C-alpha cells in the first residue's frame, strides 16, 4: 500500500486553508443550516463568545434568490464567481447535489464538503445519488468530505467550515470524529475547560475521505502535536493500519473505539471466530500500529493533553510529591495498576532533604514523598528539585491539596520552573476548585497539564512512558 503523507496533506489543504469558500445553499433564515454555516464562517460561531473571530479569506454565499446574506454578496451559481474558490460547502437537499457537483467541477473547486444527509445511509435512491456525485468528483479530481457530516473546524486560521456551534480555542490536539454530535459537545466542554484544538474533523459517511486521510493531513499539519480519534469502523481497515504505522512514529495517535459489545456477525465454527469481537480486533490493531487506546472520552483528551505539552518520559520510574497522605497512596495504587514503578528515595536524597532545613520532621522519607499538610512553597521546591534532579526518576506527579499553609500560585510557579530546568515530564494533580483555580490556569498556560484527580494524573504520566516504549520498540 502506497502511503504518501505529503501528497495527502497537500490534497486536503483546501479544506483547512482554502483560498475562497463558497456556501452552496446559503440561506437568510437563521434556523437553516445554510445560514448557520455562513455565519460560522463569517463570525466563528452562531453563538457569540469573546475568543471568536471569523475566517479572513473570501466567503461566497450561493443563492439564486437573495442579493445579500449577512452582508455578503450572493451569487446565483458557483460558476458566476470570477475569483478563485478552493472549497465548496453544500447545504442542499440530496437530489440537487449531483448537479451542483457538476458546477464545482466546472469552477475547478478542489474540495467539496457535503453537509446534507440522505445518501448512502438512507436508501437505494440515496446510494445512487452518492455514486453519481462521486463519479463527477473523481473525474474532476475533487476530494469529498461527507456527506452527512458536520464539516471541518481549523481554529489556527479561524475557519469554522461546519455547522458546529462555534470554534474552540486554538491548541495542539486534532480531533477526528466519526460522530458529529459528539464533536459538538466536545467543543462546548472544551471552552469551559480551557482545552484547545488544532483541528476538528467530522467526516460523516466517508464516501471519499476517511479517517486515515485526515490522520495523514494531521501528521503534516504544523499546529497539530497529537491526533485523537473517535471511531466506530473504517471503510478499509488495512489502510488505517498502514497509515497509523506510518504516523505514530511522527505524532502520537490516541483513539477511542465505540461498539465494545458488538461481536460482529460471523458464523461461529471456531473458537477464534467466537472470540473475535470487533473491539478485541481493534485493540490488536491499535497495539500493532502504536495507537494508544482510550476507554473514555475524558481519558482520551487527558492523555492527548499530556502528550501535547510534556516531553516523553525516558523510563517508567516515577516520583510522587504530595502534601496529603491519602491522595499520595491513591496515586501510588493507580500507578501500580499501570505498571509505573515508584522507586524508593535513595539514601543520599533523604539525607540531602533532611539537611535542607526545609522539611517537616515527620516527612515520609519515601515515595510518595509526603511533605506533610503544612507544606509551603519552599518545601515543594526543595523536594521537587531533589527528585527531578535525581537519576532515579524519569518524571514526577505533584499533588496539591489546598490546606491552610498552601500557596497554590507559588507552587504552580515552582512546577513550571523545575520542569523547564530538568526537561523531564511533570504532571500536576492540584486537586480542588475555587482556591486552586488560578494556579491550575497558570500551570496549563505554562504547559503543565493538571488533573483534578490522581487516577487521571497517573494515566497521563503513563501515556508519556508508554509512547516512549513504542518509539523504542520501533527503534526510533
Amino acid at each position: 500500500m502506497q502511503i504518501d503523507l505529503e501528497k495527502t496533506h497537500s490534497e486536503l489543504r483546501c479544506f483547512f486553508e482554502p483560498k475562497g469558500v463558497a456556501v452552496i445553499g446559503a440561506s437568510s433564515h437563521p434556523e437553516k443550516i445554510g445560514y448557520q454555516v455562513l455565519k460560522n464562517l463569517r463570525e466563528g460561531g452562531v453563538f457569540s463568545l469573546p475568543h471568536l473571530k471569523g475566517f479572513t479569506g473570501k466567503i461566497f454565499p450561493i443563492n439564486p434568490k437573495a442579493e445579500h446574506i449577512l452582508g455578503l454578496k450572493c451569487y446565483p451559481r458557483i460558476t458566476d464567481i470570477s475569483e478563485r474558490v478552493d472549497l465548496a460547502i453544500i447545504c442542499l437537499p440530496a437530489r440537487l447535489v449531483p448537479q451542483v457537483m457538476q458546477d464545482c467541477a466546472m469552477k475547478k473547486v478542489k474540495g467539496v464538503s457535503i453537509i446534507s444527509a440522505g445518501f448512502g445511509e438512507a436508501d437505494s435512491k440515496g446510494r445512487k445519488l452518492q455514486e453519481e456525485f462521486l463519479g463527477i468528483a473523481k473525474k474532476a479530481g475533487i476530494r469529498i468530505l461527507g456527506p452527512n457530516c458536520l464539516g471541518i473546524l481549523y481554529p489556527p486560521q479561524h475557519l469554522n467550515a461546519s455547522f458546529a456551534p462555534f470554534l474552540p480555542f486554538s491548541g495542539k490536539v486534532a480531533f477526528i470524529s466519526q460522530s458529529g454530535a459528539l464533536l459538538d459537545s466536545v467543543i462546548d466542554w472544551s471552552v469551559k475547560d480551557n482545552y484547545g484544538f488544532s483541528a476538528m474533523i467530522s467526516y460523516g459517511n466517508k464516501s471519499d475521505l476517511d479517517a486515515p486521510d485526515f490522520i495523514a493531513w494531521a501528521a503534516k499539519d504544523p499546529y497539530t502535536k497529537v491526533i485523537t480519534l473517535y471511531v466506530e469502523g473504517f471503510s478499509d481497515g488495512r489502510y488505517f493500519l498502514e497509515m497509523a504505522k506510518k504516523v505514530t512514529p511522527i505524532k502520537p495517535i490516541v483513539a477511542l473505539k465505540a461498539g465494545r459489545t458488538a461481536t460482529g456477525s460471523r458464523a461461529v465454527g471456531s473458537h477464534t471466530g467466537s472470540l473475535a469481537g470487533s473491539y478485541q480486533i481493534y485493540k490488536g490493531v491499535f497495539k500493532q500500529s502504536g495507537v494508544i487506546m482510550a476507554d473514555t472520552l475524558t481519558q482520551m483528551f487527558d492523555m492527548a493533553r499530556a502528550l501535547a505539552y510534556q516531553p516523553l518520559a525516558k523510563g517508567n520510574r516515577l516520583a510522587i510529591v504530595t502534601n496529603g497522605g491519602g491522595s499520595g497512596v491513591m496515586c501510588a495504587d493507580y500507578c501500580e495498576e499501570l505498571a509505573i514503578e515508584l522507586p524508593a528515595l535513595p539514601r543520599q536524597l533523604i539525607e540531602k532533604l533532611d539537611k535542607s532545613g526545609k522539611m517537616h520532621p515527620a516527612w515520609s522519607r519515601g515515595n510518595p514523598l509526603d511533605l506533610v499538610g503544612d507544606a509551603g512553597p519552599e518545601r515543594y521546591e526543595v523536594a521537587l528539585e531533589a527528585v527531578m534532579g535525581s537519576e532515579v526518576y524519569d518524571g514526577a506527579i505533584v499533588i496539591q491539596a489546598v490546606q491552610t499553609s498552601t500557596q497554590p500560585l507559588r507552587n504552580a510557579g515552582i512546577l513550571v520552573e523545575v520542569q523547564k530546568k530538568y526537561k523531564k515530564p511533570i504532571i500536576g494533580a492540584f486537586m480542588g476548585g475555587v482556591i486552586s483555580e488560578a494556579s491550575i490556569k497558570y500551570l496549563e498556560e505554562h504547559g503543565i497539564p493538571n488533573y483534578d484527580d490522581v487516577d487521571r494524573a497517573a494515566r497521563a504520566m503513563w501515556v508519556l512512558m508508554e509512547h516512549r516504549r513504542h518509539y523504542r520498540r520501533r527503534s526510533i
Partner: protein
Amino acid sequence: MNREDILNEIEQFKKEGRKFLSESISGKLLASYGIPIPPACVAKNVEKAVKCAQELGFPVVLKVISPQIIHKSDAGGVITNIDKKEKVREAFHRIVENARKYNPKAKVEGIYVQKMVPPGREVIIGVVKDKQFGPVVMFGLGGILVEVFKDVVFRVAPIDREEAREMIDEIKGLAILQGVRGEKPVDFNSLSKAIANTSRLAIDFPQIGQLDINPVCLYPEKIYALDARIILE
C-alpha cells in the same frame, strides 16, 4: 506438501462441498509452515491402525476422520492414552460406533492415529477473517481455558516473529508460560515462529475462512500443534 498440492486438496474439498479440511491435510499444511505436529498416519481399517500405532510407538490417540463431524470430541470421536494393540482395535470400533450414533449420516473415512505427547502448557493460535481488516491472527491461553478466560489477543496478518512475541507478552496469563513454582519457561522462540507462520499461512491461502490450532502444547524445548481445525470460506 508444497503449495500446489495444498491448493489441489483445497479445491477437491470444495468440489465435494465440504466446509473444512481433514485433520491429516490440516496437519500436513501446518507442518509445511514449520509448525510441528506429533507423528501420525491415516488408517482405513483396524489392522492398518494397529500397524500405525506400533510404528509410531505407544501411547497413541485415535481420532475420527469424517467430513460430517467437525467437533470430534463432542461426537465421541477421540480416544486418548491407548497403550497396547488390543486397545487400538477396541478404540477403533468404538469410534466408528460413536460416530454413527452421533450422526447416522456421518461417513467415516478413516481413523487418524497419532503419537500421544506428554501434557504441556496449552495455548491456542487462530485465524479469522474480519470484514474491515481481512485475515487476523489470534493467540491466547488454550485448551478448555480459552472459553472461560478469553485471554486472547489479535493482530492483523501477516506479522513477524517480533510482533508475535509482543502478542505473547500481552496476554494476562503470561506467567503461566514463563513458569510458576520452579517450572521451566516454555519454548518462546518456537511459539513466536508458529504464530508468525500461521499469520503468513492465512495470507497465502485466502480460501481459509477460520482456523483453530487448539491446543498447541508447549514444552521447554519444543512445541506441538495437537489439533487443527481449518474451515474453508
